[in-house]
């Protein structure tokens, strides 16, 4: 089956990059101010937010076994709420806030992992049900009225720019990219993750603690999503319930557009970030089109189809 995949990933990342560039050029042609440094900066910031939301998603999709995490949005929301409340606008509270956010994300990830590994619930439904549980817990906890705000330093990173075209968030994004790629490419864990995604049984027989590797992927996904929520309130500077809800499907789309196969075993965070840039740039471009919401949705879909037809085509079976 996969003999066809020779060098496939490389092409797809390259193509995702090219499409992203093409979108910018196309956007610039339609509307010169699209290419203003300020606008590029704001697209990058939003893309990085989506990229954060899709970080954990990347890991669980790579882990294979129909891996997917639909709790990303709910965990982000919870992370945002906890972050805002704990930071309460004080720099001195950043560390406790981070710890709490990480802990809560890890806990939810642990539940997901337990359900998937021990109760053998398929990931899609497990994480979907977990998302609803987390949302409800968040509502019970806050009674719909989360309080607090990001610490000044965090708000600064979340919403200010180093250069007009370069938000601090993008700098953070690069750090996360390096970290993620480091984990995936340079650590034993990363290689084991690819291994179980590619052939779970073979990895297990070779002595990989396959269940643990997969479980950790879900726990990491919880942590990363929760941290994404942390940065979401840093970016927004204000908190409300269900802030992350809108990120669920786009996070999956960003991962897949970035060349990570839903079958597991291959993919990269570089691709995910490029996928995020593509989705964000497209949305940004659509905002200025002269049509109503219905038209925007139709055009959004059509452009996506065009892009997908250009570069996510799977090779034919016959070679």
């Amino acid at each position: 089956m996969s003999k066809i995949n020779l060098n496939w990933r490389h092409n797809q990342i390259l193509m995702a990059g090219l499409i992203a560039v093409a979108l910018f050029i196309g956007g610039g042609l339609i509307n010169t101010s699209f290419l203003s440094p300020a606008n590029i900066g704001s697209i990058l910031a939003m893309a990085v937010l989506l990229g954060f939301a899709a970080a954990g998603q990347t890991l669980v999709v790579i882990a294979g076994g129909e891996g997917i995490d639909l709790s990303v949005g709910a965990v982000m929301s919870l992370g945002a709420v906890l972050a805002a409340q704990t930071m309460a606008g004080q720099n001195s509270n950043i560390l406790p806030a981070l710890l709490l956010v990480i802990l809560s994300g890890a806990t939810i990830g642990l539940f997901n992992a337990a359900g998937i590994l021990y109760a053998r619930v398929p990931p899609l439904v497990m994480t979907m049900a977990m998302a609803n549980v987390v949302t409800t817990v968040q509502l019970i906890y806050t009674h719909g009225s989360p309080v607090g705000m990001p610490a000044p330093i965090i708000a600064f990173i979340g919403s200010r720019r180093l250069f007009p075209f370069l938000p601090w968030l993008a700098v953070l994004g690069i750090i996360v990219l390096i970290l993620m790629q480091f984990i995936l490419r340079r650590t034993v864990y990363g290689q084991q993750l690819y291994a179980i995604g590619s052939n779970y049984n073979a990895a297990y027989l070779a002595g990989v603690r396959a269940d643990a590797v997969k479980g950790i992927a879900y726990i990491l996904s919880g942590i990363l999503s929760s941290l994404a929520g942390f940065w979401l309130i840093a970016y927004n500077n204000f908190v409300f319930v269900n802030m992350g809800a809108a990120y669920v499907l786009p996070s999956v789309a960003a991962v897949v557009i970035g060349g990570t196969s839903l079958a597991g075993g291959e993919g990269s965070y570089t691709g995910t970030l490029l996928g995020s840039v593509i989705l964000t740039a497209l949305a940004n471009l659509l905002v200025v089109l002269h049509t109503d919401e219905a038209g925007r949705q139709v055009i959004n879909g059509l452009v996506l189809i065009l892009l997908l037809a250009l570069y996510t085509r799977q090779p034919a079976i016959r070679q």
Partner: protein
Amino acid sequence: MIRLWRRLRLSPAAPGYLLLLLGIIVNILVQGPDFFTSYNFNSLLAVNAPLVLAAIAQTVVVLTGGIDLSIGSNMTLVNTVAIALTNQGHWPVGLSWAVALAAATLVGTGNGLMVAYLRIPPLLATFASMSVVGGLALWIWPKPGGMVPREIYTTYGAAIMGIPVAGWIIIAVALLWLLISRRRVGIYLRAVGGRERSAYASGINTAAVKFFAYTFCGFITGVAGLCLTALTASGDPKIGQMFGLNSVAAVILGGSSLAGGWGSIGGSIAGALFLGLINNIVFFLFRNYVSHVQSLTSVASFYQQLLANLIVILGLASAALTQRGGALGGLGRRRRGGRTQHV
């Protein structure tokens, strides 16, 4: 009996049936004998038929290893087209509804083209078409309104020969599926989902099979959309939203594997009904017990969702644990403990 049990455990639908059984038992426990009233059955089927049909539609593409995220938007499209044509275009109802059904089938065809011939990964292709179709629905019928002739929605809610009309529709669609699945294409759908390369190497036109699956999925989605229209007796550009992911959930609850090649319509029907039963269970639990407890009432509504989702997880876990893992392939089944291989 034992043989039946063994056969059931081998069937992909096993988790679905088990869940449904579990759901019914718990429902009887909280609701009492009222569960068996025909009113209850009627309403359960009438309200849940759209999801049941959406789940059937989803199963067809999931069998081929695909997924259709656009089912929800497509149902909305059917609803808005049917309503707009009768209420604005003043077309006869029959014709309007036929056109709506055709539109849904056409959406399926579009998805089929993208997946089978352009070879775009299904999740992405239908993610994109979800946006196009949702936009179209919004354009056709931008705000809730319009109506369906009384005869239609009262008929939809009624029963014929003791079986609710919604039940008959489900039976008809299931029979249609039976007619199809007993033909070669029925095997080919599972073959393509099970291992596309093998199916292709066996001389099967795999692209055509996938194309058919999405088109057929579109058609059933159309029927689901019409049922939704009959149920709600009106048009609303946001009405179908929840059906996309819910149908996927129902299919998985019914024992199908998203990896393809493994699943059954029966399981999905059971999975969808189970989701409907959960609403019932939660409703009666709160109505009969919780709402009398003064200290709980102020927070009660939060706990409904919590409970509903815990039931989903518990139900799933119990169904998964009773299902044989061996069908998932090879030596895994001979391993120790609860492990199965995830191929």
